[in-house]
């Protein structure tokens, strides 16, 4: 019987630098071949909320956790339509320098990464234990991604190679040992990397030298935000149905107001008759930006 339980979902306090935002835009639901797929700069657009004097914590310094604010840039959000934003952990693309074992513990396998092959902005992650919990995904030689396959980093430390001679050959076998202090090589142990007990020679695949890999954090769950930029929503209908309205009998201007009596829409109402003065049509025509401000509700009703 369990002595207790613990929750596994926590408000994320991920830094915007560890987030990637991918935007997909389509003007309508049924236009699928005219979409725009691009990325947005998370570091400038995504801001975490910080504690203030009301929420406790260190005001302006301590991140609130979980709650984030995303600015929608005017350059991209410049049309009506459907914007789908995909927030995922930032991907670190690098290459496996070597796959090896620890010299002192030959049963501990791992991959070795040369930090010089890591994009500069992510090199600060490649420190002892800095990548624990990160996910490693692999690319095929043709650049395609191996689907449904990943490994999890269980430890990482700086390392250096040590060399041993192999019998009956001039081939050198490199093993690695941990070193303290800065080094350009880092040894990542992955899970799973141990063979099953029922087939000890079936070593799980953890990559191969010169293979391109993608390392991504697991600091938060990927999310999607769907943003509909619309001309009308259900509030518009409420205004049209239940808002105050005036009709000027003199000039036929028909005005609709919102709940605060702001002018929501203005129309010209008129009739079209034939040469015999028979009524053919009653017309309601939007005045667009040509608003007659004298028809404000305060003027009319006061």
């Amino acid at each position, binding site marked *: 019987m369990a002595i207790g339980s613990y929750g596994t979902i926590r408000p994320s306090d991920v830094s915007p630098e560890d987030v990637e935002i991918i935007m997909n835009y389509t003007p309508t639901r049924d236009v699928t071949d005219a979409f725009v797929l691009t990325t947005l700069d998370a570091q400038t657009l995504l801001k975490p909320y910080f504690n203030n004097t009301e929420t406790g914590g260190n005001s302006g310094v301590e991140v609130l956790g979980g709650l984030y604010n995303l600015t929608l840039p005017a350059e991209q959000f410049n049309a009506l339509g459907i914007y789908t934003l995909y927030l995922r952990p930032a991907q670190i693309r690098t290459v496996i320098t070597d796959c090896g074992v620890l010299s002192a513990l030959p049963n501990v396998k791992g991959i070795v990464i040369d930090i010089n092959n890591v994009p500069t902005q992510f090199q600060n992650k490649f420190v002892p234990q800095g990548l624990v919990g990160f996910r490693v995904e692999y690319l095929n030689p043709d650049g395609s991604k191996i689907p449904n396959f990943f490994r999890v980093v269980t430890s990482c430390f700086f390392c250096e190679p040590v060399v041993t001679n192999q019998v009956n050959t001039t081939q050198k076998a490199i093993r690695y040992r941990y070193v303290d202090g800065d080094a350009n090589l880092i040894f990542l142990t992955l899970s799973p990397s141990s063979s099953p007990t029922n087939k000890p020679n079936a070593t799980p695949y953890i990559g191969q030298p010169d293979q391109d890999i993608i390392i991504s954090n697991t600091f938060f769950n990927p999310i999607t935000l769907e943003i509909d930029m619309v001309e009308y929503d259900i509030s518009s209908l409420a205004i049209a149905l239940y808002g105050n309205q005036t009709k000027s009998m003199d000039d036929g201007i028909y005005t609709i107001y919102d709940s605060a009596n702001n002018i929501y829409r203005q129309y010209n109402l008129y009739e079209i008759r034939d040469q015999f003065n028979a009524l053919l049509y009653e017309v309601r025509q939007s005045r667009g930006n040509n608003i007659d*401000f004298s028809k404000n509700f*305060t003027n009319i009703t006061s």
Partner: protein
Amino acid sequence: MSQDYYKFIISPENVEADLTVVDYRGVPVGVYSGMSQLVSSGPRGTSLLTGLTLTFLITQTAYDVGYYSPFDGAVLQKDVVTNFIFSSTTENPYVYNIYNTSSEFQKFLELSAYVVDWGDGSAKQVITGYTPNSLSHTYPTASKQYTITLQQTNPWGITNVSKTITTPYTKVVINNPNGECFFTPSGGNWLQTPVSYDYIFSGDAVNLVEPQTSKNYVTVPYTISGITKSRIQELKQYGEPKFQVGVPVVANGQIWGAVTDINDVYTAYTITEINYYDYNDGTTIFFEPSSGFTEYNLTAVPITKEEVLLRVIDQPQIQSDVFVERGKNSAYERVQRLGEVDNLGDMINYGYGFFNVENKA
């Protein structure tokens, strides 16, 4: 990992920039624009909604990676399983003795057989004894090098350990005293292929854990203090006065503590280097300098990550509620228990009140 989804609708009613307030003869009049105009009327067709922001929640589904299991050290040194040493003398420099130092008492070596190849073309010789028994061999009178090989034949393969000697023996420094060790599997992919056992090599000389650990310890101690229960009774002594300033109390063969000051406000004392102050209002505070983790309370061990321990956050703890009573009626029980008591404080605390100690003025 779960995936969250949020949907936002941005319409004229929920963006402030869509509402323009104009002055009509002193009366402010709010007027809405069309959304399609708003989002494309900025410079170079950009949106006028430059302050458009969304607030949403980001969560993390976190699983514990688990703990690193220390290496249990359950390995057998290679040169114990199969090895030999050799000797000679300057008096008989062509006579060499070898001693089978292979592990005699390993259960898995019971079926192993040993053969010595002296390296001079003579017949291989079966060796059945272990050190200190030896086997000797006389080499031809010549200045020459020979390779002595001890072959251990096991059901699972053959292990050869070879060492080079020089005749005549002249007390020279022996190169590579560990020799070379090869294992030839009797089956599998490496059948009949000698595999080197030499996993300790010059580039890997420092295989200790200690040289590979950092020592960023706090050098200036900081104070840990708090409120606790008085322990002054542990310093109570027989006779009068019960508490004497500066007189150490010995327990378990070492200095347990001492009362350092008694005044009207507090009684100060030290137990196992922790300073206590009993105030006359009944409260007790303690002070102890700490340095956090130090090399004295951290043991450096090699660590490995066992996949089976993913999401297992601690080692199994065996907790038993079983209390074995050694016999209430034992005539010696109280005597035995009394033997575990060093001082009066111990007696009061022993076994949560096992001894009935009456406090008489």
